[in-house]
């Protein structure tokens, strides 16, 4: 397998966390992985995106020009990356903040009102985990439990208390996918 992912949104939406979590979890599934963060023009409150590659084979270029999956969490990211999906690839859109006009042809468009749902869950910042739940379900990367197992490596110390909510959000995503598709 080789899965190339672009995640994009603005700082604070947990884009980087999402990417790292995927790379980390899949590394422990004995895959080759690479993760590239890229901060947008503004380092504060600006856009951010990352490239993740998960592969059975050694990875030469860690850069994703043609993605198997693109996840966009806000409008500017949608405009910037919607055409980076390979033909037949997957485009996941956070419809709470993105109006997916002129979607590219020949890709699978998945609309997830992640921020709204997260807001309803009490924390807009959980949108990334909702997306993860959906994404993993669609692509079947691995058992969601593997992501749960990975969470403590990222959310240690004072942040530990956020682990349950994160798990819940992933579950919410899974559920959402299952009920809507």
């Amino acid at each position, binding site marked *: 397998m080789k899965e190339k992912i672009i995640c994009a949104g603005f700082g604070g939406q947990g884009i980087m966390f999402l990417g790292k979590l995927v790379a980390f979890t899949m590394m422990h599934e004995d895959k080759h992985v690479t993760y590239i963060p890229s901060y947008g023009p503004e380092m504060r409150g600006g856009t951010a995106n990352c490239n993740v590659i998960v592969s059975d084979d050694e990875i030469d270029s860690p*850069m994703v020009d043609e993605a198997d999956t693109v996840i966009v969490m806000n409008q500017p990211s949608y405009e910037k990356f919607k055409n980076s999906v390979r033909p037949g690839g997957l485009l996941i859109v956070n419809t709470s903040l993105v109006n997916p006009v002129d979607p590219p042809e020949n890709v699978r468009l998945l609309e997830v009102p992640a921020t709204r749902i997260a807001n309803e869950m009490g924390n807009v910042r959980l949108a990334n985990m909702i997306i993860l739940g959906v994404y993993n379900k669609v692509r079947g990367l691995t058992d969601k439990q593997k992501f749960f197992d990975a969470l403590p490596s990222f959310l240690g110390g004072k942040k530990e208390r956020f682990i349950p909510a994160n798990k819940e959000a992933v579950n919410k995503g899974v559920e959402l996918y299952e009920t809507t598709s």
Partner: protein
Amino acid sequence: MKQLMTGNDAMAEAAIQAGCRYYFGYPITPQNEFTAYMARRMPQVGGVFIQSESEIAAINMVMGAAAAGGRAMTSSSSPGISLKQEGISYIAGDQLPAVILNVMRGGPGLGNIAPAQGDYFQATRGGGHGDYRCIVLAPSTVQEGTELIQDAFDLADKYRNPVLILSDGRMGQMMEPVEFKPRPKAEMPPKDYILTGKKGRERRIIRSLYLKEPELEAWNKIIQEKLMKIEENEVRYETRMVEDADLVLIGYGTCARNSKEAMRTLREKGRKVGVFRPITLWPFPYTALSEVVKKARAALVVEMSAGQMVEDVYLAVKDTRPIFFYGRMGGQVPSATEIVQKAEKIFTEKL
């Protein structure tokens, strides 16, 4: 055990494992993780971490620490490295060991914080004044970064010369699995020049000032002879599928990785393409490169700059084969796709 680490973190850990106990640095993106890692780890290993008031202070602290016999280093990114040039020239002129990491970003001026390779000239030709050279190492994976930074300390001690490592914003901030392998400790020449107080021995002086011209010339000759030895012994490079290649892609660091990816695609299309990756940018692998390119029909140099290493390729290849160049600037990274396109164009139009 594999760990998922950023290049910056992994190289910092590797430096500590190489015995670096004195780190002096000033924050700058995209190398901040390196400094932060050192801040966390140095106290744990009994080392010294100082966030200096500036890059200039940092390099001069390194000079002092090296003079006292400590394994010392600093790190920065492009503008900060420019500020260190006087200090690097002093360290070279003093014949002191030092390791300097440059996590290159877009320039000139303030530029941006995206990856770039615009500091090649500065690194290989000495951005500072006078006749000296830094040994320049260019890793292309996080794993290799951890190995080269360890080599850097050994090379610095072996030759009493500054060693620069050219990383870039991508190399520094990307995460890859990395494994720290225990290394046998290299045999090093005794540090018979360091300052410890003159107790029980002749007094020592470390300096680069020789007011009498013949003395400074003699000192320069010693340095030049040393540099020639380095040129003889320390050249490193990697080749991939160059044996039957018609076109040799030449790139270092990040550009080498994307070139390899491009090579795969091109080979799949039946194009005979190989990759030559200089690992030491100084000493540059002139001879090896010239031999590789002579066997092929042309070379394509890929850089994240307006074309800097390409000059060294010219010096190596001379007029024997046509040399093409593909460069991106401003923090743009030439993608495998772009390299493939450029190569295809060469195959169809120029060969």
